[in-house]
């Protein structure tokens, strides 16, 4: 044993000095192995440092308080909560009958506080703040941040905390977005123009991104709340940060729960009660979200990615070690002559991997650490939270380093075995014996391909198991890698039809499969990955393109306003006309019921609404309360094709912004033109004073019925209202979400009150991003919330990823092919000299190495493209099966309405494939030819 150790020490010494002697090659391999290590260790340190402890997290949320008490808005009715008291609050089904719950009123938190508790309040809400650019939607917090109980929630960066009601402190994110600074003034919409002075800059360590103003308790939110209550939009909440001079226990939390109050207690979060002590888990039908499945998938995915990356590095670094072994063949022969057996030769080559792997691991982790330190502020901003302290987990970092080490050794295994199989005599004399390729490897490869394809097929066709497809594809790809030497042999048959240089290159590549195969396999793996992702992305892109629903015809825009902004509609329209290339404008009004401040969506506070009624006989049987539940799956499937049950999803979603709350707008024939509808009979109908309806299910006997609800009551029951029948003309067009267009004369006739609502625009050409920004800026200056919608058609977003992947595959291919070329040149020096001696032009030398490089790249790319397309198709098929199964389940359960049938197109990204198949080998060949000396090197005597 010690003997073995001593001989390894000699081997490592030789490898170490050799690595130092050929610095260029060592550095290349070292970088290849170290780069992923840098990335992974930096990610590990970042993630670990970003993960602050539960106690720290609680301190950032609760300050020095023991607990936070918060109304569950059940009007005091009991609740059940998760121990974390965070967001997992849930009211059980039976509480829905409770009128207190339905009222949604605040529960009285103070009554629920433990006796003798000290507390401060923490209010939060949202508001529109005036900034240098316009209005900014921000959050507002009311907290006495200087109070000892609040310590740790905010960090004061500059200036002071607010001390008076007209003072606020702002987060850095707010200052950045608003263009304001400490000392500036701002106003909040709904506060009657009262000036607020920004007296300080603060930071909430957990949420660096939050644009927030910090005010004194009671200074801002109550005023805002009163203003918002007019529209029924109150969002402000008040929490109580409570100190009991000890612990707030789970029992105390449950007592508060009984009064409709939710508790987040430090003690309970840090020492959570057993599941059987949590009523929510035992009584409620609440399911704890099981994330085990996701975790497992993540682990498998991560393992696959790491495994494939290691394989890739091994395949790339392997040939580099092989070059090293080939160059030092005579040296290895000398070791053999001095009594080294195969074991010793293997040890020397493997030590090369060990030495470079160790160096790469250490350097990689060190660089990763340095990188994290250097980029800490940027990373913190990116993650959106301050790190606790830089966390180094020795075990994890050692593990990451070990991966580097193992990668190095793995990469050297094949070259080590190849070198050790060389006869000492051949090594010493420099003679090249005939190299037999392994007969076992192709069989193993074939077996792996069959097994992998089998798993993937079963996964995609029988079990719609995406993971199975991925695993199967991985195994099959490894199999193809093992098959590569045999496949390379098949390529050799093409040689006889080729001119001299490519023929020589191909023959050379085929005869020396030992060095060609790993390089081809490296290219294969990289290209297969790229093609796989590209195929998948192209297919997904095609699917998104097909699923994309325009909200308007292309190059049209729409804009509408709320009730409180209707006075500014003229200005808004002028702004749009100034910034967009408007060809035509079609104005629309909305029908309103109730007070004059009632907006299109304000149902409460004395406002009414208007609804289109579906006549009884046109109602989809599946939607009927009494019969809907009794259909069989077959009946449901049949009914889905019934016109009464059709859902016009092709109308798109964005059209909501032009819905007035009743799917009905008031306007003239120009609206039809704006929606791209050319229907003279519909235009005539509008002129005649008839309402044009785009969905036949609302029409009965040439009329539609609008239900006018004078006053909306808060209830789950159907709203009571009076029906108003209107003469209608059916025009079955895609009206992008608009159901009925009523001419002004008809609205007046029916005695509807109308108000200006917005406009549709026909644009003369497409709108640039700059124009959109300009419009947004101009509208912000007007202080309006109105947000224009501009239809640009489907915008693909994956092209950048595809391009990055193609570039990556190209680089790997050129790198691998370059290494293989270097290797073959080291081998073929004698042949080249012979060629020169018999009169070949110097150019032949160049073209030969160009072709050698190109041949490797071409074989790898061709095999990789085939190996990559297949798993991507499998993955899509598996997803399709999953979606079909979900769809059928939905049909069976009667949830079929709204679910569209499944179509998952498979698109082969021909452009990417063509780029890879043509451009990459060509580029590799040209580069190799360019970097090859055309003069022969002076031949040395026996030594190499």
């Amino acid at each position, binding site marked *: 044993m010690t003997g073995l150790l001593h001989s390894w020490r000699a081997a490592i010494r030789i490898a170490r000095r050799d690595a130092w002697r050929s610095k260029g090659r060592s550095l290349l391999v070292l970088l290849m192995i170290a780069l992923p290590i840098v990335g992974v260790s930096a990610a590990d340190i970042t993630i670990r440092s970003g993960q602050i402890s539960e106690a720290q997290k609680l301190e950032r949320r609760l300050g020095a308080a023991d607990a936070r008490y918060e109304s569950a808005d059940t009007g005091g009715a009991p609740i059940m909560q998760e121990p974390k008291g965070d967001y997992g609050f849930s009211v059980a089904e039976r509480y829905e009958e409770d009128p207190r719950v339905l009222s949604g009123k605040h529960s009285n938190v103070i009554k629920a506080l433990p006796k003798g508790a000290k507390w401060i309040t923490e209010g939060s809400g949202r508001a529109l703040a005036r900034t240098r650019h316009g209005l900014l939607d921000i959050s507002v917090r009311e907290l006495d941040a200087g109070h000892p109980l609040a310590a740790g929630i905010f960090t004061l960066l500059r200036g002071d905390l607010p001390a008076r009601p007209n003072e606020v402190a702002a987060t850095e994110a707010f200052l950045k977005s608003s263009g304001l600074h400490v000392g500036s003034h701002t106003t909040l919409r709904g506060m009657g123009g009262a000036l607020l002075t920004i007296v300080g800059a603060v930071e909430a360590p957990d949420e660096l991104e939050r644009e927030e103003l910090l005010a004194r308790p009671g200074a801002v939110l109550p005023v805002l709340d009163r203003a918002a209550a007019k529209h029924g939009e109150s969002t402000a909440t008040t929490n109580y940060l409570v100190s009991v001079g000890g612990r707030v226990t789970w029992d105390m939390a449950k007592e508060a729960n009984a009064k409709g109050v939710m508790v987040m207690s430090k003690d309970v979060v840090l020492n959570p009660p057993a599941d059987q002590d949590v009523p929510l888990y035992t009584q409620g039908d609440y399911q704890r979200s099981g994330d085990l499945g996701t975790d497992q998938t993540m682990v498998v995915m991560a393992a696959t990615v790491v495994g494939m990356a290691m394989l890739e590095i091994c395949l790339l670094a392997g040939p580099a070690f092989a070059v090293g072994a080939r160059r030092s063949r005579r040296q290895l022969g000398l*070791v053999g002559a001095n009594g080294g057996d195969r074991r010793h030769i293997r040890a020397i080559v493997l030590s090369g991997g060990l030495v470079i792997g160790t160096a790469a691991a250490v350097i990689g982790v060190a660089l990763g650490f340095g990188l994290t330190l250097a980029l800490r502020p940027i990373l913190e901003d990116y993650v959106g939270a301050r790190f606790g302290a830089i966390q180094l987990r020795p075990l994890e970092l050692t593990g990451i380093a070990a991966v580097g080490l193992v990668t190095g050794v793995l990469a050297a295994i094949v070259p080590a075995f190849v070198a050790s199989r060389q006869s000492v005599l051949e090594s*010493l004399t420099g003679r090249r014996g005939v190299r037999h390729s392994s007969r076992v490897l192709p069989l193993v490869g074939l077996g792996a391909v069959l097994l992998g394809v089998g798993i993937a097929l079963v996964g995609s066709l029988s079990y719609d198991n995406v993971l199975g497809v991925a695993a199967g594809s991985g195994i099959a790809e490894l199999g193809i890698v093992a098959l590569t030497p045999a496949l390379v042999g098949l390529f050799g048959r093409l040689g006889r039809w080729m001119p001299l240089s490519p023929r020589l290159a191909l023959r050379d590549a085929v005869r020396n499969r030992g060095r060609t195969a790993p390089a081809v396999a490296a290219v294969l793996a990289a290209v297969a990955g790229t093609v796989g992702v590209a195929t998948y992305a192209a297919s997904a892109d095609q699917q998104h393109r097909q699923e994309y629903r325009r909200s308007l015809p292309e190059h049209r825009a729409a804009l509408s306003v709320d009730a409180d902004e209707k006075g500014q509609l003229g200005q808004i329209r002028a702004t749009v006309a100034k910034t967009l290339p408007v060809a035509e404008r079609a104005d629309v009004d909305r029908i309103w019921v109730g007070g004059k401040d009632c907006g299109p969506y304000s149902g409460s506070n004395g406002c009414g609404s208007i609804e289109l009624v579906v006549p009884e006989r046109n109602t989809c049987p599946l939607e009927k309360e009494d019969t809907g539940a009794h259909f069989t799956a077959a009946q449901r499937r049949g009914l889905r094709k019934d016109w009464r049950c059709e859902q016009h999803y092709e109308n798109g979603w964005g059209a909501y912004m032009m819905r007035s709350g009743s799917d009905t707008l008031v306007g003239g024939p120009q609206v039809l033109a704006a929606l791209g509808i050319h229907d003279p009979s519909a235009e005539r109908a509008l002129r005649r004073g008839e309402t044009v309806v785009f969905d036949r299910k609302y029409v009965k006997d040439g009329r539609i019925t609008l239900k006018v609800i004078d006053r909306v009551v808060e209830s789950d029951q159907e709203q009571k209202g009076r029906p108003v029948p209107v003469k209608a003309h059916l025009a079955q067009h895609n009206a992008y979400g608009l159901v009925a267009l009523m001419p002004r004369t008809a609205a007046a006739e029916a005695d509807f009150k109308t108000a200006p609502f917005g406009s549709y625009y026909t644009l003369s050409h497409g709108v640039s991003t700059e124009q959109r920004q300009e419009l947004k800026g101009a509208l912000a200056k007007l202080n309006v919330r109105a947000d224009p919608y501009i239809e640009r058609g489907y915008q693909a977003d994956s092209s950048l990823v595809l391009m990055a992947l193609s570039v990556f595959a190209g680089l790997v291919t050129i790198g691998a092919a370059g290494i293989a070329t270097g290797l073959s040149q080291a081998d073929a020096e004698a042949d080249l000299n012979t060629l020169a001696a018999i009169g070949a032009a110097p150019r032949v030398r160049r073209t030969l190495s160009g072709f050698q490089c190109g041949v490797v790249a071409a074989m790898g790319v061709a095999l990789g493209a085939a190996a990559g397309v297949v798993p991507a198709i499998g993955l899509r098929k598996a997803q399709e099966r999953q979606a079909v199964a979900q769809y059928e389940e939905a049909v069976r359960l009667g949830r079929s309405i709204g679910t569209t049938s499944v179509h998952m197109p498979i698109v082969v990204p021909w452009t990417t494939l063509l780029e890879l198949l043509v451009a990459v080998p060509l580029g590799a060949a040209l580069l190799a030819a360019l970097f090859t000396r055309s003069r022969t090197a002076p031949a040395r005597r*026996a030594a190499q």
Partner: protein
Amino acid sequence: MTENNQHSPVLALEGLTRVHGTGAAEVHALRGIDMSVLPGELVAVMGPSGSGKSTLLTLAGGLDTPTSGRVLVEGIDIAAIGRKGAAALRRRSIGYVFQDYNLIPALTAAENIALPLELDGTSARKARRHCLAALEELGLTELADRFPDEMSGGQQQRVAIARALVGGRRLVLADEPTGALDSETGETVLALLRARCDAGAAGVLVTHEPRFAAWADRVVFLRDGSMVDQTVRSRAETLLSGGAAR
């Protein structure tokens, strides 16, 4: 050294034949060579190119296997002990010296000499002690920590001879050890080889320079794989010419 060891050959070749290739491509590199080398004896092998000189050396060191016949090193049949055994024999009993590029560039002179010992499992410290002793004996102590590319060709060959005999190895197989050296340096290298043989080692020297063959006790002539002549020089003459060179 016992009397018995004195008279049993370190290397014995019995009916050694080596045929390369088959059929029309068949080449007889060696045809039934019989030869033995005693301790303290230096045998020179001469002959024209392709006569089988180098083949004889590779077979003697177990780097190649004979088509027929036997190679016995210190009484052990190399063919019977397998490839691993042959490697072990090279570590313990046989030393090679080639024409040039004898040393491993990544190792210092001392480490090169210690290599067979270390490969055999001797600890680095013990191996270094052995090789420093060997270097001192040869008067090469100052070279101990130099790398091959920091030494002259003659120095490299002398270090190679030291390595060939380190750790009680008694058979040196030298294939044109002076081929890449000028004649004066060549003489010093051969003087060293001669001295090691005089100290009890057995040596086989392949050369085509009669001048260097003159250092041997016996000269064997090969042609087309067969031994055609054998000249035995008087011990006194050898000693005299060796002494003159020194």
